[in-house]
Structure formats: structure tokens, C-alpha cells
């Protein structure tokens, strides 16, 4: 049953990624459709980056996307590694390590999103 829960959320995360990463791709690569790139230069110009960092909706989707991608990616990696048939002790340790690394990366990404927003309001 535990594995069913893991797997179901893995699929749900996949669907979430599909929607939000699709949006992310449109914002980043098709600037003519977006309202998120007010400056005329490249999407990676600081003006545009700062605007997007400050946008509450985008900051929120970034954090959701980050969580979904990390879960989906690490569960996929775990599946692949487990199917190589490692020892049980290795499997348990690997799961713990993936949780820790995932949470740390999520922390870094979330901190960056929030700090970038705070930075802009301070400027």
C-alpha cells in the first residue's frame, strides 16, 4: 500500500510538472505570448528576471514545480536503482539519502525564490 501511495503521487507530480513546466517553457522561450517579460531584451536580462522573481504567482509556481520535479525525479531514480537489485540495507539508506538531498535542494530553491523576491522589494 505504501508503494501505491508513493507511485500515485509520482504520477500526480508528473501531471503537475507537465502543466507548470509547460507554462515555464512558454514564459522562458516564447516571450511574445507572455506578460511576464516586460522589458524588450532577452528573458534572462536582469529586468525581466527581477520582474518574474517579484511576481507572486510565478514565485508560487516555481516552488510547486521544484517540489514536484524533485519528488518525480528522485522517485524515478530510486526506482531505477532499486531495480538494479542492491542489498536491502542499501535500499533503505538510499531512500533516506534521497529524502535528505531532496529536502535540502527544495530548501535551497525555495530560499532562492523568497530571497530574490525580498531583494527586489529592498532595492
Amino acid at each position, binding site marked *: 500500500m505504501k508503494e501505491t501511495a508513493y507511485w500515485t503521487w509520482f*504520477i500526480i507530480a*508528473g*501531471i503537475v*510538472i*507537465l502543466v507548470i*513546466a*509547460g507554462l515555464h*517553457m512558454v514564459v522562458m*522561450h*516564447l*516571450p511574445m505570448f507572455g506578460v511576464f517579460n516586460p522589458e524588450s531584451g*532577452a*528573458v*534572462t536580462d*536582469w529586468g525581466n*528576471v*527581477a520582474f518574474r*522573481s517579484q511576481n507572486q504567482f510565478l514565485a508560487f509556481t516555481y516552488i510547486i514545480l*521544484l517540489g514536484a*520535479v*524533485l519528488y518525480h*525525479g*528522485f522517485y*524515478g*531514480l530510486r526506482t*531505477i536503482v532499486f531495480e*538494479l537489485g542492491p542489498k536491502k540495507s542499501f535500499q533503505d539508506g538510499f531512500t533516506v539519502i534521497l529524502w535528505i538531498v531532496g529536502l535540502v*535542494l527544495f530548501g*535551497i*530553491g525555495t*530560499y*532562492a525564490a523568497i*530571497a*530574490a523576491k525580498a*531583494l527586489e522589494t529592498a532595492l
Partner: protein
Amino acid sequence: MANKQFDNHLGIVGWLGGGRWGVERYLYILHRLTGLGLLLFLLMHIFASSVRMYGPESWGVAMAILKNPVFKLGEFCVFVIFAFHALNGIRLIFIELGLAVGRAEEPVYPYKSSLNNQRPLMVVAMVLVAILIVAGGYNTFFGSH
């Protein structure tokens, strides 16, 4: 009888090895490899994008590094594997939630299987991947940004 058996498991060759297999099995291999590739990209992307919290100067330095044509090509590669993983992923979601494999049916020779049920979906997904790759390539190399 001496219980000396030879372990005939194929090992990693069983995943990656070619053979007279169906298309879906090769898509399975590609889905794994592209997934691992995307995970690698994701880790780099988290750190690269987090640079924005240090302000415009640091961001400018990071972007100057990424101006290198190698990264342009890398970006296109990431887009290709993302397009494949995403659309093949949609196909797999439909299949693995039992929506595209049909119902149990009486096996009559020559046998048809759930692979036949999902094949139109597979073809549509792969055509869309091809279209996305062409469009993405055009946008990456000849786009305005």
C-alpha cells in the same frame, strides 16, 4: 545432483540491450535515459537559477558563462529530451492507469494485445515529439532571444 546452476539473468544488458523487440521496449529504454538526463539538468538548473538571489551583478556573471554556444546546444538537447519524456510520459500515464490498454478479450490467433490498443496513442505522441523538436530547434537557434 550437484546443485551447480548457472545464473542466467541478463543484468543491465536486459534493460539496454537491443534485439528483436517491439518499439515500446525501446521507448522504455529512452524514457529511463531521458529521465536521468533531466534529473542531472534539474540539479544544475536549481543552482544556476538560485544565483538570482545575490542580485544583478552575480546574475550577469552567471548569464555571461551560459552565453557560450556549448550551453546553447546543451539547452537544445535538454529541450529534446524534455519533449520526449513529457509526451511519452503522457502516453505512459494513460497506459499505466489502465485507460489505454483496452479490456480483457478472448485471445484469438493471431493474437492482438494491449500494445495494439495503445499504438495510435504512441504514434501521435511520437509525431508530436518530432514537431516539438523541430519547432524548439528553430526557436533555440533562430529565435529572437
